[in-house]
């Protein structure tokens, strides 16, 4: 069980020890009910000394043998540890009890085989119960922590996806263009506003839905590119190619968005003469290849160096890994003729992610 922080703080150890002492007292009470109350103090001392000794050996063994970040060693080590702890704890605890009553527990028990057997069975049973209790409690705690960490990661990922897509520079520049168009060309302004609305809606819902059709993916990319081409004018040209038979294939929403955004923002915007973005979907046997090709600055020349590019690429990589494991391939290459080609290959036999 993986824990994010150490379970071996002094507070933890003290709390476990007190719980064990309480458990021992409970067992002592039960044995008094069964065997009578003649030597109740001696019984209590033996009971606590043996119980706490076993616990101390297990606790020390856990600290030494557990791999870093884990509360328990592997089963192959934990079982011998518990067995050894019972033997050592029983011997040490008996010695302590002997000191208290001035007699010998071993001599007493060895004369009565029936009581010896029941004492051994009792000790093993009690140790097993206590060990099982702490182990399962620790496991439940670790599971809760793991779940909380996973939820936190998912929320953070959604937030950063949103932040990267609602980039303020893009938003305000688009609004500035829109403001100009309203006076200059109202129908075109309206069309641009519709594109912006569709883009914003897709961005805000993409983090919540698991998949949409490839046709929807291409429409959202087209919205973004249309907004950018109003801004960049003749400096940006675009081609989208989606064969009809691939239109209904499910893909994770806005999977290609960071790649298209990188192509425009880091490939073409910084280039004085601008250029071309080509997005294509193709079927190769039982895999689907999605590609984004730009004729911009080229990966490594401005493109691909900024923290926002790196973030976009990491995001694509992480989403693919989470949804398809090693069956999806993502590559990004500088083209010899200049520009960048990003490619994603997805398995087609996988149902909607």
């Amino acid at each position, binding site marked *: 069980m993986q824990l994010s922080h150490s379970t071996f703080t002094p507070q933890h150890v003290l709390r476990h020890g007190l719980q064990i002492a309480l458990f021992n007292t409970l067992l002592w009470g039960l044995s008094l009910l069964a065997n009578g109350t003649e030597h109740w103090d001696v019984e209590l001392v033996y009971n606590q000394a043996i119980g706490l000794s076993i616990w101390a050996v297990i606790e020390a063994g856990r600290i030494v043998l557990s791999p870093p970040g884990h509360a328990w060693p592997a089963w192959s080590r934990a079982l011998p540890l518990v067995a050894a702890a019972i033997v050592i704890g029983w011997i040490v605890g008996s010695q302590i009890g002997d000191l208290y009553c001035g007699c010998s527990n071993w001599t007493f028990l060895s004369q009565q085989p029936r009581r010896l057997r029941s004492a051994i069975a009792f000790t093993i049973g009690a140790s097993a119960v206590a060990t099982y209790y702490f182990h399962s409690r620790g496991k439940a705690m670790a599971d809760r922590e793991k779940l909380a960490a996973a939820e936190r990661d998912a929320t953070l990922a959604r937030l950063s996806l949103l932040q990267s897509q609602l980039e*303020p*520079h893009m*938003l*305000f*520049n688009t*609004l*500035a*263009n*829109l*403001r*100009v*168009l309203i006076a*200059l060309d109202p129908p075109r302004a309206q069309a641009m506003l519709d594109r912006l609305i569709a883009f914003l809606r897709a961005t805000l819902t993409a983090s919540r839905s698991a998949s949409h059709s490839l046709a929807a993916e291409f429409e959202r990319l087209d919205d973004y590119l249309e907004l950018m081409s*109003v*801004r*960049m*004018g*003749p*400096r940006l040209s675009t081609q989208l190619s989606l064969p009809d038979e691939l239109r209904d294939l499910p893909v994770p929403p806005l999977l290609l968005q960071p790649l298209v955004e990188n192509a425009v923002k880091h490939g073409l*915007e*910084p*280039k*004085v003469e*601008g250029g071309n973005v080509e997005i294509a979907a193709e079927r190769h046997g039982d895999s689907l290849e999605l590609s984004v090709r730009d004729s911009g600055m080229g990966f490594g*020349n401005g493109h691909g*160096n900024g923290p926002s590019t790196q973030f976009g690429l990491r995001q694509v990589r992480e989403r693919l890994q989470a949804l398809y494991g090693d069956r999806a391939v993502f590559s990004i290459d500088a083209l010899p003729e200049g520009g960048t080609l990003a490619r994603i290959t997805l398995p087609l036999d996988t149902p909607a992610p």
Partner: protein
Amino acid sequence: MTPTALIAEDEPLLSASLQAELAKCWPELRIVASVGDGAQALQQALQLKPALCFLDIRMPGLSGLEVAQALAEDWPDDGTPFPLLVFITAYDQYAVQAFAAQAVDYLLKPVEPDRLAQCCARLQRQLSSREAPQAMQQAVDQLRALLGSAAPAAGTPKLEVIQAGVGSTVHFVPLDEVVYFEAADKYVRVVTADKEHLIRMSLRELLPQLDSTRFWQIHRGTVVQARLVTSATRDESGKTHLTLRGRSEKLTASRLYAHLFKPM
């Protein structure tokens, strides 16, 4: 005299709109050039010498700030007043803070007509009251502060050695031996006492990886190892000429960096 202006904005609609809005709130202003990238902005401004430059921050080629720096370094000494600069940005938090701190004029996109009218009124006052030498000095001080505030965050790992590739061999040049770095298009020339190497990165990318107390930027395209400067001589135009240990050529520090070479 009719005031003149240059507009540098890469988005065609925004450029046309700024021109139209300016025509409304400042009818006498004559737009002498409207360009869409940084390199053209620099070239046109140096050639046409407008009274005002409206510079978008994010442009292809050079950024608006880089254009301003280059203008301040290359502006002639013939008494032509340095243009008043107005930066335009959609959203650059740090730049906007720096502009406000240095009392540099700036406009936020979308540009509001009231804000533009205020800006024009302020520019008109400045144009009527200013004198050329003061204007240059004021611009230099402001830009120096702006460029200083845009300095890269500390914590970037610093280089100790330059790895310069020639064919299939990589030469290792200890930083101690580098006399100066000089920008050459997409490359940087690495100059030691007896050798020269080219590395495939821009000076902009290299700068954050140099210790700025050892390596001083003296021009937008030159960084010198301070330890190896032997003398600095200031000429009447405000440029400073440096002689170097181990090199016979002289380097020139621009107006923006001349203050580094004052006597103690």
